[in-house]
């Protein structure tokens, strides 16, 4: 006999634990530890050179081998998570905040303002992301702060568009109409009734967007636009090790694999959250 339980009425955002999702969450947990306290995972100095052991292949002493200066690649990868991830997180947060705010304004404003903002999104997204970021860095200077701003600028239109579309839907819904007939002012209406419902999908989109932001940060650092060597930033490490690829594949492939696994985990978790979220709304 089967007992049919009533579906819980509260919003259940828990994610069904498939092996893939569990693995992804574990990876992200490890990465988070590496960002907050890298010494817990790899206690050595990421800059310590050892001239006697340069370009050693991976073994039990050096899990990821050593690079051209004899620095331990594993230690550098662990300590590099802080650079790569924090640039990605800061850029995503900034672009969600700015893009989201502009999208909300566009969605609530009368036609001319909305048109202007929407065109601005169109113009910005006409520039390929990495090239727009390159232009921004050319106008400022290479380094982590301009990298964050450059990536935020190139990602802002996507969040702006989504929030604008979402705002349009919410402001025409029944409960907003009703709140309006009760005489609520525009600001109160936007803050209390529209905003909370517009924000719903943003964390999910931001999780997926964070993956692309981390990739773009690494790509721009690879081009030499980010934190400069000897910082163990992942893109910069890949750029340095490109020259030693013939003799030491591990100096490039293992940091690269770490970057990929991190982004795959972010994307996988983001997509699962998204499916969950859409299922709830359907």
């Amino acid at each position: 006999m089967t007992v049919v339980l009533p579906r819980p009425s509260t919003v259940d955002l828990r994610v069904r634990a498939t092996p893939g999702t569990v693995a992804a969450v574990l990876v992200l947990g490890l990465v988070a530890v590496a960002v907050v306290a890298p010494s817990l995972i790899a206690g050595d100095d990421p800059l310590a050179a050892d001239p006697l052991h340069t370009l050693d292949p991976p073994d039990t002493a050096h899990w990821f081998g050593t690079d051209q200066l004899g620095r331990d690649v594993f230690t550098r990868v662990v300590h590099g998570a802080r650079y790569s991830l924090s640039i990605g997180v800061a850029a995503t947060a900034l672009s969600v905040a700015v893009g989201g705010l502009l999208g909300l304004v566009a969605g609530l404003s009368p036609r001319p303002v909305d048109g202007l903002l929407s065109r601005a999104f169109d113009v910005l997204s006409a520039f390929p992301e990495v090239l727009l970021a390159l232009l921004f860095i050319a106008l400022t200077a290479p380094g982590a702060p301009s990298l964050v701003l450059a990536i935020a600028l190139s990602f802002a239109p996507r969040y702006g568009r989504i929030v604008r579309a979402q705002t349009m839907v919410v402001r025409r819904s029944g409960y907003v109409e009703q709140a309006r007939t009760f005489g609520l002012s525009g600001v109160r209406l936007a803050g209390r009734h529209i905003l909370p419902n517009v924000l719903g999908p943003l964390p999910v989109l931001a999780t997926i967007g964070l993956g692309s932001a981390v990739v773009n940060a690494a790509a721009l650092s690879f081009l030499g636009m980010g934190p400069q060597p000897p910082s163990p930033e992942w893109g910069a490490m890949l750029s340095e090790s490109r020259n030693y690829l013939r003799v030491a594949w591990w100096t490039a492939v293992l940091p690269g694999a770490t970057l990929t696994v991190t982004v795959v985990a972010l994307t996988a978790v983001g997509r699962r959250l998204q499916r969950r979220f859409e299922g709830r709304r359907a």
Partner: protein
Amino acid sequence: MTAVLKRLGGSVLVLWAAATAAYLALRLSPGDTVDTLVGDGPDTPQIRAAIIADLGLDKPAVVQYLTYLWRLLHGDLGRSYVLQRPVVDVIGGQVWPTVKLTLLASAFCVVIALGLAVLTAGRGRWLRGFVSGVELTVVSAPAFLIGILLLSLFSFRLGWFPVSGDRDAAALVLPALSLALPLGGLLSQVLREGLERALEEPFALTARARGLTSYAVVARHALRHALLPTVTLAGTLIGFMLSAAVVVERVFGRPGLGEVATEAVGNKDIPVVLAVVMLAAAVYVALSTLADLAYLLIDPRLRKEAAA
């Protein structure tokens, strides 16, 4: 017809706004233009005056802006600060290597997307699950990293392809693959979803009942429906491809716009950076407009909606 004109008008507007934004970026860029141009060369009032007259910096801002637009319309992108040559000459020779690369990458991309989607749509769980996992990985992996992996394996280990440069067709294969794998994986995901939706439609059942094999139903009936969203997506993916090409060119040490752009950013050669960025934006706008128009052409229902 109205819909087509409207779409074209919108694209022209975006291009104009992009050009204006570029102009503002050039004007607002830190440092005095004349100082930048004089650089370490001889610095006399005469030279300064010549530069000012040459660039029209003594004219009102509106005149300068209109002159800029007028020159832009005639393909004059200004002069490089560093190389002291017209920007068109600097980037002219570098356009073809990049175009060649993106064209071959697009072809690979279509083959990968069609192949994977048609072979796995509506198939058994294990095959689908495996292919989805591979797709997720290649979609998430940055193109330049795939490039490094391919380079390490096929050029350095196996020696099948040249390590760098652009001497022959073989040098093009690995860079094009690095660009095509992430985008092909993404397109194949979208395409398969469309195929599976189309396969649930009554017409698919009818075709199956007429005795067509399941592959024939996919290839002849479902594919046409599934292609629609893919075409729109392909238009926007051009932007990703151009972004990725800049980095992938560096991985393989290929000549091209990526090389020019990165050099120019390092040298603070703003006119050259702007030219590459604007060129990419123009290509992106043109191709996504084409994709949207193709959409109108394929699906008659949209024509009515857009015109209304």
